[in-house]
């Protein structure tokens, strides 16, 4: 009973608000905690899931761009370190090309044109200038590259090709891309694994926290819950109240988390695009990527509701 009613006019009048909850879950301090918790869960989850997604995308890019693509590299110097003439280079590369095309495992072999080379090297050298300043020849001895599209990438094919090209030029080198590609793929695999792990940890911790919070809310409103029981309310009826409460709070928290993550990821993308464009493959968000941003908050809300349901039912079972 409020014994200082004059001080609070509205309460003193005592007209209550619209009936929404049988149990006053919408009041009390637990609310803010749960909102922040779900917000955080959604934020971290979105970060790790989108990181995993982007990594997968990168890995696929690298894989499709480079899988089955080998390269033969022909330096433009001879064994004694002297520069070859244009004629010599032309001859050697034509020779290599024909030899390589005869291999069964090679689908096509293409000599990379100057244009291709320029593009390939542009991030590292100011290739335009290098050529123009000295007329025909570039300042640095740019090697001739022959790109191979392989139908077969076994060790035998590699061995055979190596044997052949050595005959033409001992300095020519076969690059299978494999070592650094697999390195990169292993790295992204690890990162993806970490992301999944983080997701799992967040989910479990969050689930436990939600369950704990709900059980403490139940303890707080024990008397009301017992009263509802004694009036013949089934477990479902009582659980629904908590579920609704959890759903509203989770949705609020999830929205906040979603907004923060979108801002964060957009900001990060903007920052990265302004800096090292060449460092990472460019990533264009697909519809599926954006779908994650709808699915994650909804699933977390759903998870919260289910957890609540489980926690409340579990506790109710213990009551008489």
């Amino acid at each position, binding site marked *: *009973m409020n014994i200082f009613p004059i001080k609070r006019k509205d309460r003193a009048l005592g007209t*209550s608000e619209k009936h929404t909850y049988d149990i*006053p879950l919408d009041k009390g301090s637990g609310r803010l905690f749960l909102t922040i918790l779900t917000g955080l869960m959604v934020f971290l989850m979105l970060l790790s899931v989108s990181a995993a997604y982007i990594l997968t995308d990168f890995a696929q890019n690298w894989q499709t761009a480079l899988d089955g693509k080998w390269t033969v590299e022909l330096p433009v110097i001879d064994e004694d370190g002297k520069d070859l003439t244009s004629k010599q280079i032309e001859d050697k590369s034509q020779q290599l090309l024909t030899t390589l095309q005869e291999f069964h495992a090679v689908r096509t072999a293409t000599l990379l044109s100057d244009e291709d080379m320029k593009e390939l090297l542009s991030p590292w050298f100011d290739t335009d200038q290098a050529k123009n300043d000295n007329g025909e020849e570039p300042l640095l001895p740019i090697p001739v590259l022959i790109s191979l599209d392989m139908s077969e990438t076994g060790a035998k094919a590699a061995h055979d090709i190596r044997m052949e090209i050595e005959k033409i030029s001992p300095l020519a080198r076969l690059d299978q891309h494999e070592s650094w590609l697999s390195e990169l793929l292993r790295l992204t695999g690890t990162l993806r694994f970490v992301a999944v792990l983080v997701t799992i940890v967040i989910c479990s911790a969050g689930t436990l926290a939600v369950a704990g919070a709900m059980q403490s809310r139940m303890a707080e409103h024990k008397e009301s819950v017992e009263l509802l029981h004694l009036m013949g309310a089934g477990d479902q009826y009582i659980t629904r109240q908590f579920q609704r409460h959890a759903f509203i709070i989770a949705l609020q928290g999830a929205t906040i988390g979603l907004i923060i993550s979108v801002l964060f990821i957009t900001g990060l993308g903007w920052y990265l695009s302004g800096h090292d464009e060449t460092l990472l493959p460019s990533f264009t968000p697909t519809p599926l990527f954006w779908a994650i941003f709808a699915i994650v908050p909804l699933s977390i809300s759903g998870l919260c509701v289910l957890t609540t349901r489980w926690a409340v039912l579990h506790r109710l079972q213990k009551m008489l």
Partner: protein
Amino acid sequence: MIKFENIGLRYGVGPEVLRDVHFTLAPGSFHFLSGPSGAGKTSLMRLLYLGIQPTRGEMQMFAQNAQQLDRHKKAFLRQKIGVVFQDFRLLQHLSAFDNVALPLRIQGQKEKDIRKNVEELLKWVGLGDHMNRLPHTLSGGQQQRIAIARAVVTKPRLLLADEPTGNLDDEIGYKLMILFEQLNKTGTTIVIATHNEQMMERFRHPRLVLEDGELSVEDAIYATQTKKILDGVY
């Protein structure tokens, strides 16, 4: 309808509060439950509304063994019982109206019917002007009337009232007793725990008397003699 056989009850490791309690309530019967303070009236009520389990003995309610019900059946059975708690147990954040409407909402009745029934009942108990007030802004007697209204609004098959007129003046107390009588005429079995000798004298009903944890049943006729004298006074 209700049959207690050899019921014993103790709280925790304390002494037995109820011992060898043995009685039958016929459908449509009306009993007073009396006994000194601390005799175990509220405890017996708790057993009747399935708020606790007896430590020993057998309880039959509505032709079912009350100790072996599953949760669903128990909830269903409780919907047929109306209870006025000794300490009211109103939900403090709900208005008088919503407190009374609660058992109807739990039973899933239509909101339109609920409004009509609840408003009518609240007017009847003299709280027509206070329907939207929160319990803590009402007087003790007004709160008690809400508790009573909440117990009877579902027209339960068993009504348990624990000291329902302790905070009410005689006039409104008698008015509520008449409400109980009317409910009883429509078939509700009623048990009222009370200390109010005057009320027990005035309304002739058999008494269950608890003394030292043991229950004895006194017939209504016993009390009639005294009542005639009192009838002259009021």
